[in-house]
């Protein structure tokens, strides 16, 4: 509809997206570029070959300050936050009392504070949930006046190095507070593409100039939400609301690695009972990668059947992998059908499409370990 973008929020880069020819679509309440003139396929391949710049300013940023901030956050997540070393970042889940996933997020230890990045679609709920659980002396400080940009791809580190030599020394999941092209920034060496790269938080009022400085670097092109989705799916990474939600547990979602070892002794996080039971006895279903045979994609909500038989699961994300050069999906299947290479039928438009359970990532990660 012509007026569907009118009530949407804008990131600090809205004008720049339009200037670059971005096709704006509604996403999590924001007008966001789904693609630029290069197109999803071209942007995806460019990111894997050189470097892509993503605006992820719609995501929620906040700081948690206070002497016991890490312990306070552990009341809401099974991650080991207290064991997170200074200037390191970790992937974590907020869990529900029933053992579902309230959100997934990144937590970084900047020494004097924790820095959180949560999903755009969940930020209000997340921050309210965190605030409600904080003891005296620990404060959540929302950072709505900061933009977030991601520079991703095998050329990202070399491209940005001249603007800030210190970035080159960072390893995957390191964080730093630095000045890049004159702009004070919180940086992590991480991303949502499977590639090496950085996620960079900068003051909103300096975001456009900063983005222009990055786009002027050799090999850097803007990448929209469309390619962001195909890149993360090739990398086997979950999208909250599609692949994980309040009904899926960390065990079903194959995200047990995000649960700290100490936390698996203490069992003092929301939903610990369910997680403990599932780790002991297994789950009914598991999140797996699925590769359809041939070239036809199967999209989210496609029913998954045993070959010629009953339904055993459902696809939660599916599409075409430009670097994989073939269709790919992830979804939940009954445990008996979750082993790699198990044959499945995907019911696409009423017809079975042959597929197999496949290991993820579909395209190898290239993090700066």
């Amino acid at each position, binding site marked *: 509809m012509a007026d569907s973008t009118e009530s949407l929020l804008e990131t600090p880069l809205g004008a720049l997206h339009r200037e670059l020819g971005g096709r704006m679509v509604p996403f999590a309440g924001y007008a966001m570029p789904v693609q630029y003139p290069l*197109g*999803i396929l071209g942007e995806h391949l460019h990111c894997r070959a050189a470097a892509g710049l993503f605006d992820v300013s719609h995501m929620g940023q906040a700081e948690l300050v206070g002497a016991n901030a890490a312990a306070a956050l552990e009341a809401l997540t099974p991650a080991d936050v207290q064991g997170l070393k200074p200037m390191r970042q970790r992937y974590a889940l907020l869990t529900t009392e029933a053992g579902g996933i309230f959100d997934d997020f990144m937590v970084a230890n900047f020494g004097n504070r924790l820095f959180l990045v949560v999903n755009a679609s969940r930020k209000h709920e997340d921050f309210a949930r965190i605030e409600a659980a904080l003891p005296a002396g620990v404060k959540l400080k929302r950072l709505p006046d900061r933009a977030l940009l991601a520079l991703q791809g095998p050329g990202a580190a070399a491209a940005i190095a001249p603007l800030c030599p210190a970035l080159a020394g960072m390893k995957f999941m390191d964080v730093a507070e630095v000045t890049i092209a004159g702009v004070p920034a919180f940086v992590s060496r991480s991303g949502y593409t499977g590639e090496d790269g950085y996620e960079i938080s900068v003051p909103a009022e300096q975001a456009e100039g900063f983005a222009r400085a990055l786009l002027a670097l050799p090999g850097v092109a803007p990448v929209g939400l469309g390619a962001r989705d195909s890149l993360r799916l090739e990398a086997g990474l979950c999208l909250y609301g599609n692949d994980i939600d309040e009904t899926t547990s960390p065990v079903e979602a194959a995200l047990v690695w995000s649960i700290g070892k100490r936390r698996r002794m203490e069992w003092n996080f929301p939903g610990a009972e369910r997680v403990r039971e599932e780790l002991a006895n297994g789950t009914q279903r598991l999140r797996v990668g699925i590769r359809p045979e041939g070239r036809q994609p199967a999209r989210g909500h496609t029913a998954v059947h045993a070959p010629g038989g009953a339904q055993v699961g459902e696809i939660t994300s599916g599409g075409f992998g430009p670097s994989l050069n073939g269709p790919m999906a992830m979804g939940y299947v009954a445990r008996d059908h979750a082993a790699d290479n198990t044959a499945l039928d995907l019911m696409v438009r009423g017809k079975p499409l042959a597929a197999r359970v496949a290991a993820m990532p579909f395209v190898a990660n290239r993090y700066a370990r």
Partner: protein
Amino acid sequence: MAELKFSKDHEWIAVEGDVATIGITDHAQQALGDVVFVELPELGREVTAGEACAVVESVKAASDVYAPISGRVVEVNSALADNPGTINSDPAGAGWFFKLEPSAPAELADLMDDAAYHRFVEDHA
């Protein structure tokens, strides 16, 4: 010279003698983005005007392609299986989808000519 008409679902149809060739418009391919897969109708299938009879999948999503008029499918562009990107690069030519033998040629009168289609696209932009 074939008579070229357009549907509100952004298909084009070129009728030459008793065969109608159907594809999607340049506007449609731009809106879809990069096409990665096409499902074409079976030969001999009888379709009615407005019936979904092919599917075009872009990186982003799947979309139906409708028969602009009724008829019997007499040929499909099987070259698209290996080169679906032809739909993006040459939507009005080598990117055609299928050919029909019209069963009710009078239905063509319900479709738009070139000028009307361009107005339609602008009005719905």
